[in-house]
């Protein structure tokens, strides 16, 4: 006796088109507000976490105790970073600066964080998006092969997916470079800024994600393949490949789209390793450097930038999901 959904009661009437524009507006507004809340929360969490760290931030700014910084220099830095103010003032000032897009100055790089991230963001986004596309291509290609290739293909592809999902990026990168650059000399081992240089980083990043997407895709593919509508389609004379293309693909892609935020996050995580190994500029490498040197403004900046990117990607994934699946969802 489950709660009846209100939609079921809708009679023969056409769907409510009334207020479609209003609906879009409401959706957009909710997304924007939600995104801002997320950014605010990230900034707040990071801000207060910083204050829990022992040690003098001013000293850290000047490169740690080993920098032999003079007392004047420390005072100068404290003043510059507002470290002599009460915590609440610092917090509000921090929020105020963030609101104007000022992410502060990196301790370790002594440069404007916002500007630095603006420089770094496109490289990472390009890497992540290219990897996302490749991951999808691999996942769907495997699903296609597994669906049409019979039992052996299904077994092999399933094993491949499991292994792919279990491979650490850093190890995969090493092995790929060893094989494709050192042994075969086919691809450049470090990024060049040309499409060829993008191949190995993208493949490295894409394979584990493809493994995950493949597993999820396969689950929904199997569900869809046993749904009655596939019988209807085959009863119309649809061929297996037509069935895959026209019906199963969408169903298989749906949960993957819902996971696009997760997948993007996973790609950003992987970018930390991949950018370092392939000497690509980007957020991940910046973050790793910042973490190694405990460069808090930079860590904060990267956290905010990735949160922003995440919020945007999730919204886009949601849009894509709605495009593929127009069924109105309750929540």
């Amino acid at each position: 006796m489950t709660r009846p959904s209100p939609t079921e009661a809708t009679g023969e009437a056409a769907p409510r088109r009334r207020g479609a524009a209003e609906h879009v507006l409401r959706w957009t507004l909710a997304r924007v507000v939600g995104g801002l809340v997320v950014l605010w929360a990230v900034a707040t969490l990071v801000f207060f976490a910083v204050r829990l760290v022992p040690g003098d931030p001013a000293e850290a700014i000047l490169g740690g105790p080993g920098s032999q910084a003079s007392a004047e220099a420390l005072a100068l830095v404290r003043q510059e970073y507002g470290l002599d103010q009460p915590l609440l003032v610092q917090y509000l000032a921090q929020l105020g600066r963030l609101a104007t897009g000022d992410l502060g100055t990196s301790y370790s790089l002594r440069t404007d964080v916002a500007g630095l991230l603006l420089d770094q963001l496109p490289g990472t986004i390009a890497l992540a998006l290219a990897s996302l596309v490749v991951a999808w291509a691999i996942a769907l290609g495997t699903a296609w092969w597994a669906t049409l290739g019979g039992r052996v293909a299904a077994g092999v592809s399933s094993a491949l997916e499991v292994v792919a999902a279990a491979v650490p990026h850093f190890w995969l990168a090493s092995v790929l470079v060893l094989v494709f650059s050192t042994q075969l000399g086919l691809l450049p081992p470090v990024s060049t800024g040309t499409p060829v240089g993008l191949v190995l980083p993208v493949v490295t990043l894409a394979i584990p994600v493809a493994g995950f997407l493949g597993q999820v895709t396969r689950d929904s593919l199997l569900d869809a393949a046993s749904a009655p509508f596939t019988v209807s389609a085959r009863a119309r004379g649809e061929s297996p490949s037509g069935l895959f293309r026209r019906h199963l693909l969408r169903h298989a892609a749906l949960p993957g789209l819902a996971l696009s935020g997760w997948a993007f996050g996973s790609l950003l995580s992987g970018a930390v390793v991949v950018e370092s190994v392939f000497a690509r500029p980007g957020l991940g490498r910046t973050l790793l450097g910042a973490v190694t040197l405990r460069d808090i403004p930079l860590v904060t900046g990267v956290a905010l930038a990735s949160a922003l990117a995440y919020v945007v990607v999730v919204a886009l994934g949601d849009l894509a999901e709605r495009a593929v699946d127009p069924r109105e969802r309750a929540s």
Partner: protein
Amino acid sequence: MSVAPLLEVEGLRVAFSGRRVVDDVSFTVAAGECVAVVGESGSGKSVTARALLGLSGGQVDARRLRLGGTDLAALDERGWRGVRGPQVGLVLQDALVSLDPLRPIGREIDDALRLHTRLGPAARRERALDVLAEVGMPDPETRLGQRSGELSGGLRQRALIAAALVLRPELVVADEPTTALDAEVQRVVVDRLAALRDAGTGVLAISHDLGVVRRLADRVVVMRAGVVVESGPTEQVLGAPRHDYTRMLLAALPRGVARGARLSPRGVGPGPVVPAPPAAVPSRSAHAQAPAPAPVPAPAPAPAPAPAAAPDVVLAASGLRRVFTARGRAAHVAVDDVSLELRAGETLGLVGASGSGKTTTARLLLGLDDPDAGSATLLGQPWAPLRERDRRGRRAQLGAVYQDPASSFDPRWSVGRVLADAVTAGRRTRPTGVAAEVASLLDRVGLEPGTADRHPASLSGGQRQRVAVARALAPRPRVLVCDEPVSALDVSVQAQVLDLLDDLQREEGLAYLFISHDLDVVAHMSDHVAVMQQGRVVEQGRTAEVFAAPQHPYTRALLAARP
């Protein structure tokens, strides 16, 4: 009508990894003829139907399997694809899932044309519109762009039929085309198939619903456990059945069977040969707050007279209203000013199409949801709205039986644990006394004592529903709310469960709120009946009177739509 049959099936066998589920089945379908294959779950009728399209998924062999001039048995996969669509169309039950929920129905219809014709897009669209109009789809232009989820049950079933018909196949196989549809929609679908048959198409209908079969089929094939037990012209098979199984099926139909009369033969199924003697029931008067009617000695002759004393109202609803609001939508009034009265030892039937508010009403009366307006009383005491804390102590007086018992059991618990939990009201004490009471409960609902060790998932649908009834009985309630308790069951099992409910009512003086979309079942089970439409009770009264002389147009329409 040609002399040679359109479809010839002779000695059809289908096996799944060695297990034969269809064995030596033979029948023919002529052009312009409708043949119905009837049978219950596991009879092999659906597998038979799909074997005709090469979609059974098992190992198929047949002495003869011909459609028109085509030897189906000799087809390879590519050959089958040429046959599916242009020569045989398939209509499945429940178009919500039988049409791709992500694609507009226009595309689904278009697929068939694109695969099998050389028509251009415009011509294909023309054909799609034609066929939609043909199946009685209003406003076909708009519908082309809509998906199955956006259509009502009737419309999407029409769309599904249209998709099967668009290539004008010689044979249409309809697998349970009316199951899970409201009576009115069922009727539309049946009419459509009948029209198709009259236009010269061969129709093979698979159904468990003998009412539908009676209206549609020229000939009937009765299957049981993969074997044809009887076949022949409809009037002959349904009018003068020769086989026991056919007779049993017919007897199980509640239509026109008097209130209290048995539907299932004694000794058939797992039901008790003799209902448990009342002595086995521990004293329950201690639990009953209101004066309980004396238990009627069993077995009682049909129909049980209401207790002589003035019938007490055990459950009453007054002006119940429930409105659902979802973000960005107009509020939906699910239940609107519903007032009902259920008397001790009686059954109040609640009928209506899906979405008419029956289940919401049941939830309000069960205290699972609070009304926005109105109130309910149980045994004369306030019941809803009420804080759950105040209601909990009196929960034992009110039990519930659901349509889908499987999901109402904790999958980790054995039947014994489910019942023991219900008997002890959740406490974990008195193991010996509890075991005896569990055994007694199982006995009363006609289940073996050994059932206690099994898990609900391993039971058949009928057995599960018996366990659900036993659980509902455990706290010794005065009232049971039964929400579509037999809708998911085969007709013979349905008969057994209905008989069980009848017996229990007689023995224990239970009052039932009996919810069903099936008018025949309600007519058979209820003393009073209430008809719901769009959240309102449009008519209520004594069952016999309402069915004999319906006052409200909607009731009349419902009754007219019965197959």
